[in-house]
């Protein structure tokens, strides 16, 4: 059974998801640096993923929200492309200073993914802020 959601409700859901997801990804990064408990880190990841799912579902509400989505995706893609090129450079540089006892290759790959998601939310919000009066 299809539930018809009004245009405005979908737009509101999209923006709410964007805001909560952006906060969640920042909370995740802050939590990792502050060594939060695993369940707290898990919650931030869960909120981020739920937000991304909602954004995918509601991005096609209208062309304006789609433009916000595209802005976020473009920013995320740029970070992924840069990480693809520079992650090995960063890993090598980091290993030089930290020693190979703590190899950073895996960390760089994981970090790149989170940076891409962070860039997505930053790109979306920058486009949103620039489109407001």
């Amino acid at each position: 059974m299809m539930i018809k959601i009004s245009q405005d409700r979908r737009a509101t859901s999209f923006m709410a998801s964007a805001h909560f997801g952006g906060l969640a990804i920042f909370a995740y990064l802050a939590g990792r640096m502050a060594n939060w408990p695993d369940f707290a880190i898990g919650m931030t990841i869960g909120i981020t993923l739920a937000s991304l799912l909602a954004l995918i579902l509601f991005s096609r509400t209208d062309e304006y929200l789609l433009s916000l989505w595209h802005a976020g995706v473009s920013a995320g893609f740029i970070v992924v492309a840069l990480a693809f090129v520079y992650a090995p450079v960063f890993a090598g540089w980091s290993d030089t200073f930290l020693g190979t006892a703590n190899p950073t290759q895996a960390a760089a790959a994981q970090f790149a993914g989170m940076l891409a998601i962070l860039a997505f939310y930053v790109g979306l919000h920058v486009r949103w802020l620039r489109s407001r009066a």
Partner: protein
Amino acid sequence: MNNRLRVLRAERQWSQADLAARLDVSRQAVNAIETGKHDPSLPLAFRIARLFAMPIEAIFDDGIS
């Protein structure tokens, strides 16, 4: 792109939500178009023009005279 959307909307005493409902877009989209921060697609521009019964050029101004 400059436009007269806000003026045309005010003449009919429509809220942004009213206009959004008539155009089948979100209120956020209407606000972004009115403030010139988002340029509508061609299909949406045509829907706006038909709604106000005016040519597109009478509503939107690209600044090129």
